């Protein structure tokens, strides 16, 4: 039975010391309140939140039978809980209480006392009106999960984790770096005691690493946090380390093999590290990590997926044989590719933005030539002992067919290649002229393929005039790969094409490559703009023709031939006549004598994107000619396969599934020019290798599409990011040695020379290591523990915790934008954190304070407040800089005897033994100059300033500008909120202040709690502080978390949503907008129902409901309207 009582309200106005009463006439407000409707008693007190204040309320509730309470004081965020508890103690439902914020919303923000008093009255009235409408609510009790999540593994996170773990509870410690330790691990000594940071830190790190209650997630980030106090669901992303944590022994053998050099972030770029690394020798866990930022642009540019970065780096360290092996994993014919590949990789090379691409193709040529010369024609892989029984037939011994055969053979499959011509090699042998690719080299490369066990049967066509596909299956082959190439020359279909003296390019080149004699005469025209046109033209010159002209119907930019080939042809004397096309050939006695051409102009772009050439009417002209070579494209000889049931595309190529290369016929695959039309060697090889993989899956009965072809593939890294990584020198590529053009047209010897070893080494060192790890896999060979897994994937681990401690620390201020200090302009200007490393025995100088030229500094300046206490950067004081600057001064004097000048604004030394340390420094003779530094310059104005850095500052005590010449400058940079602090704030639902630091619940009384229940903060993420304060906060946060766990249960807000089933029409709009899926539709009753356990009380549903069936408890419309009326009247 609910008895509706009349409201009996008690109103209590707080003075908050004088915080409220200095603006608000409290007595007047009390008088006003006492006259309001339903108000039974109104009082004021100096501190309502004190025990006495609370007692006042409790007694009144009992004495006057109050059933509603209003306290007008600070913000509800501050003391709502306090007063609710007081009500509860007196037996009143805590939700029958309302707070009026007359400090935050009135006294602190209102200028005029009269106005403030009136405003306070309005807020009190609003609260009285509101509380009269309040309904009692039952607080919800939830269980606390005893596990704790600690984010950040610096000294704060470690301390908190250890405290909780020691208390017997489980901690998940998440650190984004590969090792815990944070900034403290970088320090040498700590102020003011000058004890060694590592000596006090490393034992703690080890304890964290070994504690059975601490589950350590390094190189990991918190990805998602959901839930509420006591019941958080956390997703932790474990970034791939590429090293197995449980296997790595930390022996560091792997780094000996790594050819990559990257700036060492732990040493602030003052040292290099390899791609496989650990941050520092005492790292916990003592496990290496591979820095793999993606794939290098060169690698992803290659149609065959060749790891150019990998072999370039192997060349850079002289591992040529290893480089050859790495190349052969993705392509065959390395020497041929090293000569005739269009090198898509080079176009994408990041070096293009820094002087010109690395000569990747030439390096491949060097590697292949070196291998054949020094190792011999020897298979670089070991063949499996047992041959498989599934035989595969390959048709066509060109690059595609042989690639497919090779990659199947090295896996143990018996492969037979059928070749129609007399020798294998396809276009490599018959189309690419000797001066670009000697056939003797092709022979060597094919020898390797034969060594892999591939049987090559020449003079045996399949298809036209030879075996049929059915016959091949009949002979027991389980699969057939058609790589018949594109050998049929297209013709123009114009009059006179059958005259003597007219050749087709493939036919012509084939005859020349075979060594047949071809008489062209003096005046030769080549028709076409592709590579075979350019090849034919250059061959014609070498055969002794005096005048060779390429006729091309479009303009030069549209020519499909490689630009460098066109250039080389022009150098040799080939003429280029663009926008010209033959329309007829005229002859005498069946022999060509004249070519009739027409001029062309360019019209609209066609389907290839190039502008369509249109003949200009009446522009026909005739020129005398001895020979014409038609190089207008090729197509596969595919018609015969149509009868075998294969689908043929309109352009004559064979139809295949682009992913699996399977044709429409079961067991028949095709690739290379046969499916793509004339393309490049590297594309053909790529398709051949792809076919090998899918044929393997097919013959093994696997699902072809179960996994992608490239199982291990990463995004291309951002080139700009690579260039930002460190300072680089712009350098031009090593120029390739070519024979002079007048000499080279005399014979068919190679035009370009192979790089010398010296040049190759130097060129390979230009590589910028875009991807980080180059995946040369040398580390794998060295790792006896077999701990390396280059294909590791990111992993998401889900854990449940009851509370969260955020200890994400800080980052140091980057002084580069403050150009007056000369950081990054003068080598002897360091930031304080860099100087910590220089000071550290494990740092780049092994703890010796030396200038970059090795000299010992004689005079050192330390500039305080760089990025602190400055309107232009950060207004706040970073708290630790004065102290660490004095620590530096002491260490510099101790280690070098140099004179030290400290430029300060004020010395801040508040702390135990801090002032004493300051005094000690003064006594030691450190010069303290009070004044802000105007600039650091190297412009000398006197002989003693020569060759030094001059610090110009106003000495405000002496009242004059001083110029202090020094050898070294240390900038005492301030502390800033860490990178990613914003993301962390979003994740756990806490706020940042204007400077990015996390906001505590109360600056004095709740310094480690936050506005989000169950989330605590510790250390520098809350604001700059020194190590002792950080550790104290961490322990405090741990105590808060433990206290929560010990309680076992906690009350959570009862203010959830409620849907009145009598009013609800079941439109489900509320269900759709609820972010927490807390609303279900009950089809039986046709209404929506709130699941209170999940509801967070945001009120979106209530505002959305068109019927006003949804109310948010404690924030319902009646309550809000009453409050609004009070504020407004």
């Amino acid at each position: 039975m609910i008895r509706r009582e009349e409201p009996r309200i008690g109103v209590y106005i707080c003075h908050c010391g004088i915080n409220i009463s200095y603006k608000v006439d409290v007595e007047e407000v009390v008088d006003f309140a006492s006259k309001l409707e339903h108000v039974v008693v109104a009082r004021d007190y100096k501190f309502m939140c004190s025990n006495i204040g609370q007692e006042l309320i409790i007694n009144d509730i009992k004495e006057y039978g109050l059933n509603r309470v209003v306290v007008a004081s600070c913000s509800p965020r501050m003391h709502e809980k306090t007063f609710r508890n007081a009500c509860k103690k007196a037996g009143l439902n805590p939700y029958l209480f309302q707070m009026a914020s007359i400090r935050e919303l009135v006294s602190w923000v209102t200028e005029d006392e009269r106005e403030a008093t009136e405003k306070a009255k309005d807020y009190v009235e609003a609260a009285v009106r509101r509380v009269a409408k309040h309904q009692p609510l039952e607080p919800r009790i939830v269980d606390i999960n005893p596990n704790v999540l600690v984010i950040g593994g610096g000294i704060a996170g470690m301390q908190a984790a250890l405290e909780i773990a020691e208390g017997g509870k489980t901690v998940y410690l998440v650190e984004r770096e590969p090792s815990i330790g944070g900034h403290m691990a970088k320090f040498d000594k700590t102020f003011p005691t000058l004890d060694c940071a590592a000596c006090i830190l490393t034992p703690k790190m080890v304890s964290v690493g070994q504690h059975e209650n601490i589950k350590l997630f390094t190189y990991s980030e918190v990805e998602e946090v959901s839930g509420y106090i006591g019941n958080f669901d956390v997703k932790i992303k474990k970034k791939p380390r590429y090293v197995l944590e449980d296997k790595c022994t930390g022996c560091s053998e792997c780094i000996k093999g790594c050819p990559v050099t990257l700036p060492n972030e732990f040493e602030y770029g003052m040292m290099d590290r390899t791609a496989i690394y650990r941050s520092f020798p005492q790292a916990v866990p003592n496990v290496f990590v591979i820095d793999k930022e993606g794939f290098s642009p060169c690698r992803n540019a290659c149609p065959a997926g060749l790891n150019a970065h990998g072999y370039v780096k192997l060349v850079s360290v002289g591992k040529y044989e290893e480089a050859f092996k790495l190349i052969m994993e993705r392509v065959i014919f390395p020497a041929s590719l090293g000569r005739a590949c269009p090198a898509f990789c080079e176009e994408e090379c990041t070096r293009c933005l820094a002087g010109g691409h690395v000569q990747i193709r030439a390096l491949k040529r060097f590697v292949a030539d070196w291998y054949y010369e020094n190792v011999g024609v020897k298979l670089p892989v070991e063949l499996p002992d047992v041959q498989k029984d599934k035989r595969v037939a390959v048709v066509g011994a060109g690059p595609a067919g042989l690639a497919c055969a090779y990659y199947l053979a090295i896996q143990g499959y018996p492969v037979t290649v059928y070749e129609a011509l007399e020798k294998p090699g396809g276009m490599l042998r018959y189309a690419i002229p000797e001066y670009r690719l000697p056939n003797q080299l092709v022979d060597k490369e094919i020898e390797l393929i034969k060594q892999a066990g591939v049987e090559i049967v020449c003079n045996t066509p399949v298809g036209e005039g030879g075996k049929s596909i059915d016959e091949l299956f009949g002979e027991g082959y389980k699969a057939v790969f058609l790589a018949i190439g594109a050998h049929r020359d297209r013709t123009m279909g114009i009059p006179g094409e059958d005259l003597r003296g007219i050749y087709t390019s493939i036919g012509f080149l084939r005859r020349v490559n075979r060594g047949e004699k071809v008489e062209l005469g003096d005046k030769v025209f080549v028709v076409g703009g592709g590579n075979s046109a350019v090849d034919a033209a250059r061959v014609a010159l070498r055969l002794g023709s005096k005048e060779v002209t390429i006729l091309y119907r479009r303009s030069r930019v549209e020519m499909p031939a490689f630009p460098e080939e066109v250039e080389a042809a022009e150098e040799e004397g080939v003429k280029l006549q663009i926008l010209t096309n033959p329309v007829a050939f005229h002859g005498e006695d069946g022999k060509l004598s004249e070519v009739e051409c027409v001029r062309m102009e360019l019209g609209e772009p066609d389907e290839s994107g190039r502008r369509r050439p249109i003949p200009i009417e009446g522009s026909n002209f005739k020129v005398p000619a001895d020979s014409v070579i038609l190089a207008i494209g090729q197509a596969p000889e595919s018609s015969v396969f149509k009868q075998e049931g294969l689908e043929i595309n309109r352009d004559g190529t064979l139809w295949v599934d682009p992913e699996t290369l399977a044709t429409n016929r079961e067991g028949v695959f095709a690739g290379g020019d046969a499916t793509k039309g004339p393309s490049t060697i590297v594309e053909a090889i790529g398709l051949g290798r792809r076919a090998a993989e899918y044929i393997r899956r097919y013959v093994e009965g696997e699902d072809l599409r179960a996994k992608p072809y490239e199982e291990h593939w990463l995004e291309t890294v951002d080139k700009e990011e690579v260039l930002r990584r460190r300072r680089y020198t712009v350098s031009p590529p090593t120029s390739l040695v070519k024979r002079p053009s007048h000499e080279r047209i005399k014979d068919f010897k190679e035009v370009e020379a192979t790089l010398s070893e010296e040049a190759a080494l130097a060129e390979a060192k230009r590589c910028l290591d875009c991807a980080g790890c180059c995946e040369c896999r040398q580390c794998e060979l060295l790792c006896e523990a077999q701990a390396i897994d280059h294909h590791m994937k990111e992993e998401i681990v889900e854990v449940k915790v009851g509370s969260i401690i955020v200890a994400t620390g800080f980052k140091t201020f980057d002084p580069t934008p403050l150009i007056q200090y000369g950081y990054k302009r003068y080598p002897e200007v360091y930031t304080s954190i860099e100087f910590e490393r220089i000071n550290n025995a494990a740092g780049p100088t092994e703890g010796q304070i030396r200038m970059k030229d090795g000299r010992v500094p004689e005079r050192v300046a330390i500039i305080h407040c760089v990025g602190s206490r400055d309107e232009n950067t950060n207004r706040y004081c970073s708290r630790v800089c004065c102290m660490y600057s004095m620590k530096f001064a002491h260490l510099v004097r101790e280690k070098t005897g140099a004179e030290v000048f400290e430029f300060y604004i004020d010395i801040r030394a508040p702390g135990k033994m801090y002032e004493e340390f300051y005094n000690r420094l003064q006594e030691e003779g450190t010069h303290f100059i009070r004044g802000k530094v105007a600039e650091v310059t190297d412009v000398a104005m006197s002989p003693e300033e020569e060759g030094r850095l001059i610090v110009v500052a106003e000495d405000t005590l002496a009242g004059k500008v001083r110029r202090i010449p020094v050898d070294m400058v240390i900038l005492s940079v301030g502390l800033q909120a860490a990178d990613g602090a914003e993301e962390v704030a979003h994740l756990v639902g806490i706020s940042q202040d204007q400077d990015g630091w996390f906001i505590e619940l109360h600056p004095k009384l709740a310094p480690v709690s936050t506005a989000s229940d169950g989330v605590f903060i510790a250390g520098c993420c809350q604001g700059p502080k020194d190590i002792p304060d950080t550790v104290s906060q961490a322990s405090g946060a741990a105590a808060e978390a433990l206290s929560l766990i010990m309680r076992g249960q906690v009350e959570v807000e009862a203010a959830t949503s409620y849907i009145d089933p009598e009013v609800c029409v079941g439109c489900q709009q509320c269900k759709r907008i609820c972010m927490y899926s807390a609303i279900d539709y009950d089809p039986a009753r046709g209404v929506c129902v709130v699941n209170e356990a999940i509801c967070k009380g945001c009120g979106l549903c209530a505002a959305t409901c068109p019927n006003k069936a949804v109310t948010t408890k404690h924030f319902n419309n009646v309550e809000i309207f009453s409050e609004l009326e009070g504020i407004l009247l």
Partner: protein
Amino acid sequence: MGGNGFIPKILYALCAWCGTGGSETAAALWLKYPENVRPFRVVCTGALDPAYVLRALIEGADGMVVSGCHPGDCHYNLGNFRARRRLAVMKEVLNTLGLDGDRLWLRWVAHGEGKRLVDTAFEFDAHIRGKGPNPLVKRWDT
């Protein structure tokens, strides 16, 4: 009426997270703003019922300004986006009713942005002073 002597009644709806946080930051820095700008708390800007705006204007408020978390920062994920859409419609509704949609503003204020909250209060106060009193007061039937 006009500019002279006219003190508008302005309600400032703040979400319980960033908006209220902003008012507390302003308070902690003792930043002053016009006393006639009166903050009140809703759970989330997305929970701001259009009825509040209508009721306030009918009860004699001259304008209402709403502040909550910046886009992407909402404590309830997307409540502020909901608010943005709802208030855009609300402005049209107010125009239709002859209540002047420009008497309703929405501006994001983060917890740390006390200054922004105060600036908004000043700006909106000046804006409403420029507009003059709520047109409803001229009607004989209210």
